[in-house]
């Protein structure tokens, strides 16, 4: 999946095509044609306005990663809900600094987003040298455990997927 003249942003093209069908709730041939056209035309229009194109090295892993995140969102949500509804004195919030191995801006963004999306942690800041991610957690038992968990669970697969 490399950018080409016809598909300057291939991932986007696929995404757009899917979204078009989603939007129209349909698989009608007319819409497939129109969606295909838009999926090609729009990226060509905005190609100039994009810097780094994601190149997914391992699509299968990416899909697994997505499911993993969704599952984590689901489970963690309940935990957080209980904490929010429970007594406030019990929560032990805190800020931790996660060292970053992943280098690409897109990778960091995806990593930080994942952390934010899974309940209980929020990516607060990224150091200027892009080597540290500051994460605020709602309930920290052990900073190092937390750091290790997010790095293993999310950063490692992301690195693999993006190949960086």
């Amino acid at each position, binding site marked *: 999946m490399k950018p080409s003249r016809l598909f300057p*942003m291939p991932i*986007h093209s696929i*995404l*757009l095509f899917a*979204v*078009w069908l989603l*939007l*129209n709730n349909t698989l*009608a*041939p*007319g819409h497939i*044609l129109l969606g295909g056209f*838009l999926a090609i035309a*729009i*990226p060509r*229009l*905005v190609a*100039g*306005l*994009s*810097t*780094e194109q994601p190149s997914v090295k391992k699509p299968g892993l990416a899909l697994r990663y997505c499911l993993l995140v969704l599952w984590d969102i689901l489970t963690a949500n309940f935990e957080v809900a209980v904490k929010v509804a429970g007594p406030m004195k019990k929560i032990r919030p805190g800020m931790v600094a996660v060292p970053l191995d992943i280098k690409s*801006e*897109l990778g*960091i*963004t995806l990593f*930080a*987003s994942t952390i934010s999306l899974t309940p209980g942690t929020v*990516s607060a800041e*990224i150091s*200027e040298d*892009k080597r540290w991610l500051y994460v605020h957690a709602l309930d920290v038992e052990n900073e190092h455990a937390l750091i290790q968990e997010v790095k293993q669970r999310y950063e490692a697969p992301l690195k693999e997927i993006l190949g960086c």
Partner: protein
Amino acid sequence: MNNLIWIPLLPLLGTLVPLFASRFSRSACAFLTAGLPALALILVLQNASSIFDGEALYTVYNWIPVIGLELAFRLDGLSLLFALLILGIGLLVILYARYYLSAQDSIGRFYSYLILFMFAMLGVVMSDNLLQMWMFWELTSISSFLLISFWGHKTEARKGARMALTITGAGGLALLAGILLIGEVVGSYNLYEVLNSGDVIRDHVLYPVILVLVLAGAFTKSAQFPFHFWLPHAMAAPTPVSSYLHSATMVKAGIFLMARLYPVLSGTELWFLIVSLTGLATLLLGAYVALFKHDLKGLLAYSTVSHLGLITLLLGMGTELAAVAAIFHIINHATFKASLFMAAGIIDHESGSRDMRQLNGLWKYMPHTATLAMVAASSMAGIPLLNGFLSKEMFFAETLHQDSLGSLSWMVPVLATLGGVFSVAYSTRFIHDVFFNGEPINLPKTPHEPPRYMKVPVEILVALCLLVGIFPSLVIGDLLYAASGAALNGIPPEYSLAIWHGFNLPLLMSFLALAGGLTVYYNRKELFQFQAQFPDNDPKLVFEAVVQLIQRQAETFMQLVENGSLQRYAYMMLSMSFAMMAGPLLDLNATAGLRPELPVDAISVTGVILLTLGAVATVVWHRERMKALVSLSIVGLIVSLMFAKFSAPDLALTQLSVEVVTVILLMLALFFLPQQTPKESSPRRVVRDLGLSAMIGGVIGTICYALMTRPLDSISTFFVENSKTGGGGTNVVNVILVDFRGFDTLGEITVLGIAALGIFKLIARMRLYMPASDENGRPWTLDSHPMMLAIVSQSLLPLALLVSAYIFLRGHNMPGGGFIAGLITAVAIIQQYIAHGVDWVKPRMKVDYQVLIGSGIFIATLTGLGSWLFDRPFLTSWFDYFSLPLIGKFELASAMMFDLGVYLTVIGATMLILANLGKLTTSERPVVSETD
């Protein structure tokens, strides 16, 4: 058809001659200038014989019938008399002025004004329509203004001219009112009909008003007391002007008017009282003051005032003979006064002074001129064998033959004689003090005789004085008879124009005046000392003080009313709106109508609470602007939700998208405007404003409620019924926008485009205040484009564009459309600016937003024009359904094209605004030091 029209027309053309002729020599210019008036004079003389036969000539053209204005001229005795004076003396003045004006003076301009005045004056006397007469009447004021202010660099000239214009202008306006009333009473402005409606007018309830208004016009023009004061100050004009306007013509216009309307307005008690008393007062005042004027022209001016008073008095007496005497004196006064002014001008010209305290013994230096002046002055004094004597005798006689003042009627001849005394005295002074009485004192020049031809006009006029004085009926008999007949609108009474009527009372009065005058002049030292005791309360100063007072008061008033406070203006406007709304509502018996109301639900209540608190918070926090902005956003959100709730999805979408752009704009404002508002409204003002806004809010709410609870029978069902069949779309709102009322939309996008252009103008060359720190003094962070925001915004752009394409394409049938799609696109692009900054976006997006606006409007308009090809009105829509293999049935509609225009304009406009603003801020950003 007669040639009457040419008599005024020739001078009108003549105004242009001097402008071209001024390039030649002065004599040539004068000669050429005189040509057309001379021709006019010949025309007048040509017609004279038929007038003397008792005929009157008329000519009339339609002009503006709606107001009763026609181009109507008449030549009867009265107008003949005046036309001769105007043209004859006018020609003499042209000759005189050739020598009078110096080389620096623009003779072309002078002649042009002079002939213009001649034209105006001829118009006045020859008008056969009152409105037309008024027109020329005002034109005399204007041209005399130009003449008096000919030496505009002198303060005196400017002020004198302005005063004359103001007084005569005011009189002119009164006259207009009077004429309009006459027209209303008579039903016509035609002089013939007016003159024959004397009884109708005199019996009308408006007669006193008409009389006062017309006389106000006449008195101001003829310098009657108490409006006399402008005339002496008009002496700032070059002397030819004075000898023309202020002796022979313009000041006689008022007299002419009274004579003209004599058959209509005179003959009542009111006429007599006003006119004769005014005339008497003017006569005495003018004669008395004239004696004390050291300025030669001042003396002549007041003498003119006095003589005008005399004529007015005559007209006021109401007897036919008095009217004849008045007309006779008009002629005589014109001749001797014009020559006197010319003589005074010669003296001034050759000696450099008009002050009688300097001018002495000029007889030795200019005997010829002195002779002429002395003859004319004698006529003015009423010496026998001169024309002045004849009319003065008639005047004295008439004063004896009236009894309108009842038992006090004897006072009139006595006072008239007294006037005669002073008249003789100042005439004597004019002769003695100037030509004799020792040697000149400190004159700027050594006096000598003027150029030969400069004296010619004076000689002619003085000769006339003599001729009329000696052979009155031969020289002037026919003219006087015709003129009197015209003035009286009938046959003049019996009178005799003889030098000698035997020893009678008038002769005695003349002798008394002569003797008395000489005595007064002999004892002038005592009299001057006596007069010196009184403060010199010049009416001119009073006039100027009044004008200045009015001006100052006006300025104060305007500063008070228009104090430049928007808050006041807005308050007034809103108060007025409240009054306009609340007034009728008081009559509304029941607020609620008969339409059933919708039930209230919990969501709505929540919405109302949110909206209320949001709005109130915005108001309460309006001084902390960031907070106000956040709470304003809630209001916007709830309003959108309300639209959604009440079945207006399109509105909800539009409101939402507009909302975001508005918030972005407001944030820009927040950055460049102070972030906090000082507390400067006084509690009183706050309460006042709160009161007004609460009342208006209450009224609007009431109206809204009253409207909603009443049934409505509207044209809307048509739109629902025809949306699909006629407009080809199921989203009725969109079909209205692009089809039924597409013209509104065209206007709307034009507004948007114009706003963008205007904002671009505003931004250009704007020097912004850019705070280097926020309201708490905290410097801005250095992380200008946070990474996550940048990366995510980038990938959102294509998604947003896709959504906007979706919204655009479905608009015709489902909620959406070009406008919303355009805003989504614009917002998506703005997001790129927010996330990456101008410097990053600019090289990557080479779109000329101005072209986008232009082509958007152009496409929408062209779509509308397309219907012309099918011979349909602008914006007639077209749509059809097509079917293609694979794709199936789809619709194509011209409305889509129109919507595309909308789409492009919206993007262009929004981006032109925001991108340029961003560009500006970036280029002007001060370099922030990193020390903080």
